[in-house]
């Protein structure tokens, strides 16, 4: 089972509420065992490196179609930055988790979900911890470049700065330096 199949399963077995998000705006989602589980129906969003209440495990991630936003904490408030117009759908976590816990296949899938989320997020942090800012910026630009929905768009300095937890001026400076190096 992959994330798309899981998103479909959730849709077929639960009553969801849709939310439409506008590009470049920030939305705070309530996510956790006592509140909601979310899926991205369409569009691209991201959570920054430093989030409200420091929910590290869901920070610094890019969220795309069919991605699930799930937490085993009680309730966390997550600021989501919309890179494009997006639609989110939310379900009651209590009901969703009850169904997952009753189904061996779904429980195993959830374990895989956390494992994959983990490795993906860690690679972002590892870059931050170990690499120079230029390398990190190059890595992130490459990461964003691989997202189809963002094709042809240049990610702004402000957006990258939000994602990286840096100041916009620092991002501009590094980008200018990298561009200069490319032309030399």
């Amino acid at each position, binding site marked *: 089972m992959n994330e798309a199949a899981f998103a479909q399963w959730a849709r077929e077995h639960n009553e969801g509420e849709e939310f439409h998000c506008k590009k470049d705006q920030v939305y705070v989602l309530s996510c956790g065992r006592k509140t909601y589980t979310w899926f991205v129906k369409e569009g691209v969003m991201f959570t920054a*490196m430093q989030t409200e209440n420091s929910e590290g495990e869901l920070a610094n991630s890019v969220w795309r179609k069919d991605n699930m936003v799930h937490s085993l904490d009680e309730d966390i408030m997550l600021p989501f930055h919309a890179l494009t117009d997006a639609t989110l759908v939310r379900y009651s976590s209590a009901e969703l988790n009850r169904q*997952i816990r009753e189904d061996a296949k779904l429980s195993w899938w*959830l*374990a895989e979900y956390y*494992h994959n989320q983990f490795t993906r*997020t860690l690679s972002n*942090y590892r870059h*931050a*911890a170990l690499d120079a800012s230029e390398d990190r910026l190059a890595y992130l630009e490459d990461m964003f470049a691989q997202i189809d929905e963002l094709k042809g768009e240049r990610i702004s300095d402000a957006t990258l700065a939000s994602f990286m937890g840096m100041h916009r001026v620092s991002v501009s400076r590094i980008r200018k330096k990298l561009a200069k190096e490319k032309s030399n």
Partner: protein
Amino acid sequence: MTDSLLASWAKDRFAGEDFHCKKGRVYVISCGTRTYTWFVKEGVLFTTAQSERGEDELANTIWQKDCMIHSLDEDTMLPLHALTDCVLVRYPSEEINRQLKEDPELGWLLAEHYHDQFTSTLAKYKHAALDASEDQLEYLEDLFSQIDELEGERISDATLATFMGMHRVSVSRVRKKLDEQKTSTPPPAVRPIDSYAATPPPQVDKLRILAEEPPDIERSAQPEIARPACREPRHAGRI
């Protein structure tokens, strides 16, 4: 709690193999869906910030009693540094995972295990990414001070350096600076961010894979035991 439940379940269901590890030594264990799942029976070990082949999800972690070392990758080779004498027990992953997949409650426990592993490891990376080395060092000293089995022991510069992926000299320098600050005026409001070089990776040719009867493995780090230090107050667990 989750890992304790899984440890107890595994002990009841499977015949495990025990391995005895000596304090101060490094052991490379094979962990993955095609190899083994491990539990710590007693003692404390850690994996460093930079592990061989970049097995990030199990890197930079402290492993204590009942902790499960499990991976959904096929096979990862993990260098585990023994902070105390330890006993590890291993089980073939194939059988363990087969049963985990058949039981929804166990599957859920595995999901909780990964969630908890996730948040705990990320806390350390976040510190590395965002804080100055002094904050990171203080955070880690506090983390180690909360481990009962290490009570009264001072974690050596070499050990901390290995854990942090820094050079021992950098750790000594930062520790000295922190000690000086404690005895003099308060630190300035803005602290420069130290840049540091990573410590060399474990010397692979000196590490051997844990086998039936674990051979003595050459020490790659000799932790020092100094005079007992005061226990620092517990910080909140979440970042």
